[in-house]
């Protein structure tokens, strides 16, 4: 009886992970294919990596994406952290409903709408006040900051509402004023959540095609835009090479971070077990 069940679960897992990973693995394998076609394996070669790195358009786009990603993740953190704090710790205030709506809405807003509306804002602003003059890196950064800030706010809010307020009250009781409490007590305690929020924002920004396409200008093509225009025409070995690099980089990052988490957890449990002994 339980044998039947576990066979079913096992095959579900095998099938599911095959479904998740076979396409990625195929892309990685064919990035080393000498020929241009996906279907025929003509021999091992790294020439597509060479051609990827000599593709200036691609390198520029990647550079743009990285810059936008770092800037908008940082700005999103700066805006989203106070927003999350307000949502979980400030109680009622005038306009709270609108505020929480503006934080929840970007998460469910279709990207096409966000992109269109921000473009129209930038066009209107340019007409009215002359800023932003043309569109480019800065408009993309503003757009990404806005929706990433909402994600950061949600991450921070959920971390804070899971956290006992008595620690902050204790700090206040011992004479610390609100601003100090935030920087000395709250911030260090939610640091992992902030890091997660930053990484999430960075990834979302790097990954975004639709919003960037709306608010980009000439000379501010991002990596997804570049990839998209080349992928539309079909499979390209250069993109295979790029995909492989991205996947390897992400895997390495995740591996390292989970090892770090594992180690700190182990340290922690060792410390508490020596105490009990």
């Amino acid at each position, binding site marked *: *009886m339980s044998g039947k069940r576990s066979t*079913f*679960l096992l095959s*579900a*897992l095998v*099938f*599911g*992970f095959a479904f*998740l990973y076979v*396409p*990625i693995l*195929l*892309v990685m394998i064919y990035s080393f294919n000498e020929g241009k076609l*996906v*279907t025929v394996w003509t021999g091992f070669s790294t020439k597509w990596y060479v051609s990827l790195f000599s593709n200036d358009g691609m390198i520029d786009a990647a550079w743009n994406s990285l810059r936008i990603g770092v800037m908008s993740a940082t700005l999103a953190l700066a*805006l*989203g952290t*106070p*927003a999350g704090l*307000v949502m979980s710790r*400030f109680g009622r*205030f005038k*306009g709270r409903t*609108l505020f929480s*709506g*503006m*934080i*929840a*809405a970007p998460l*469910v807003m*279709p*990207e*096409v*709408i966000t992109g*269109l*509306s*921000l473009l*129209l*804002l930038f*066009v209107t602003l340019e*007409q009215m006040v002359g800023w932003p003059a043309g569109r480019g890196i800065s408009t993309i950064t503003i*757009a990404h*900051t806005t929706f990433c800030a909402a994600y950061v706010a949600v991450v921070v809010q959920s971390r804070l509402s899971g956290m006992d307020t008595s620690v902050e009250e204790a700090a206040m009781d011992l004479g610390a004023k*609100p601003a100090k409490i935030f920087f000395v007590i709250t911030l260090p305690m939610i640091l992992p959540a902030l890091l997660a929020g930053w990484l999430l924002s960075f990834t979302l920004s*790097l990954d975004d*095609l*639709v919003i960037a*396409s*709306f608010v980009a200008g000439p000379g501010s093509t991002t990596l*997804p835009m570049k*990839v*998209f225009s080349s*992928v539309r025409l079909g*499979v390209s070995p250069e993109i*295979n090479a790029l*995909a492989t690099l991205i*996947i390897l980089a*992400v895997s390495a990052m*995740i591996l390292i971070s*989970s090892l770090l988490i594992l180690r700190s957890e182990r340290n922690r449990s060792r410390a508490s077990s020596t105490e009990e002994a």
Partner: protein
Amino acid sequence: MTSDTPEKSLSLKQRFDRWMIKHGRVLVIGIPYVWLFLFFLVPFLIVLKISFAMAEYAQPPYSSLFDWIEEGVTVTLNFGNYLFLLSDNLYATAYLNSIRIAAISTVITLLIGYPMAYGIARARGSVRSILLMLVILPFWTSFLIRVYAWIGILDREGLINAFLLWTGIITEPLIMRQTEGAVFVGIVYTYLPFMILPLYSTLEKMDVSLIEAALDLGCKPWKAFLKVTLPLSMPGVLAGSLLVFIPSVGEFVIPELLGGPNTLMIGRTLWNEFFANRDWPIASAVAIAMLVFLVVPIMWFQHIQTKQEERQS
């Protein structure tokens, strides 16, 4: 108390502290508030405004609603765009199609994701964290590239066709890319992790002894699953389904890359109005319609949902 020390004797730091205590709260609320207001709310008002304008060959390509004549301002509201949306059933079709495709994909994702989540939740500790990492990993890699991976598989010259031709099962390549089926595959593939993670977290938290109790009381295993496991994991099912349904309804990339020319979805329609037809007012009207018929109901549903959860806890 410090409040009766004279103003003059205060140091700069004391003044700053006092100012912060008085205005700090307003500042902390105000900065994100103003940003979101300016870059999230105001844009919608502008979209609303432009949806009432007329398309023109100009820069920007729409007419102005306000005419400055000597007596003052006259406002010309043009409902033509909305009437056009109603008259041409392309838009209604695209809207309904989006919902249908998103709903079907969500169900498929659930059917694949539930057993996976269940299997992960029942796995041993170390295996479990590895499996979980394997679910999370694709989420951090590029979305576009994951869709792209399927082009190489489903294409006319793709791997499946090559394999089938080689085995001799078929003599003519099958059309798999540029069909609705390919869109389902793309959505299920890219959003599967979003389904598995919330399901996993409810299933993992669930007490195994509940199922044991059901078995002990004479329930057959599948019945125990239907009567105990499934109802208790409903919050996870709902959360996962929403996480899949919401982004896939407005999806542009997947139907564009994997779907055929007549796989109409509302996000794609808006994109085409804007980039291909350069009709900004119609695109705005589509956006407003999406907002009213899609985003508002979803937000309302979520609002009710959280209210209910709060009441239960």
